[in-house]
């Protein structure tokens, strides 16, 4: 089970703040592909993934129990 959170534009696109994906492990790249398929217009090429509150690379492996977040382009300040 992998937990994912959506923020900002992605929260509005998916209509939810987050959900649980029933997978034991997957790469960040696979997670982004999954999101793009589940939510057309997700824009995976502009979205980062944080795993346990740290930015992850596309090759990084996500394990069951990890807390993930999709991070669209930030605009703080």
């Amino acid at each position, binding site marked *: 089970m992998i937990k994912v*959170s959506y923020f900002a534009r992605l929260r509005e696109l998916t209509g939810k703040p987050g959900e649980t994906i029933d997978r034991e492990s997957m790469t960040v790249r696979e997670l982004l592909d999954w999101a793009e398929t589940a939510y057309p217009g997700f824009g995976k090429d502009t979205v980062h993934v944080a795993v346990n509150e740290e930015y992850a690379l596309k090759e990084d492996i996500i394990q069951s129990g990890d807390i993930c977040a999709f991070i669209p382009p930030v*605009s703080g*300040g």
Partner: protein
Amino acid sequence: MKPFEIVETPIEPQKYSDYVLHAGAGAVTVFTGHVREWTHGIRTLYLSYEAYIPMAEKKLAQIGAEMEAKWPGVKAAIAHRIGEMHISDIAVVIAVSSPHRKAAYEANEYAIERIKEVVPIWKKEIWEDGEEWIGGQKKYPEKGIE
């Protein structure tokens, strides 16, 4: 207050400059980012900020650590507000103290640039005739965001 924090109530800059001040500090710079009425000719009614709070506070603290490593003697505090904000409200405050002024300016400007790069906070602009989440259009870098 925490020295690196996301808050939901109005920001009082004095709290953060008091935090960084100490007997060895000869210079303090305080930057505040405010909601501006006009951007690129479009009139903003108000803004709404959202954050991934625990990660955002971690990233603010990381920026503080970067500043203190790059400019020895510098002490920093940063707060970002989330929720709805109106014209002239403070969205972000960066307070920096340093023995000498040069580092206080440089480290402060470094902080705001880094915030705009790595801190998971998002701004939505609400105008008279619409609204939009603002965000850079950068592609996913091969080596990750850092």
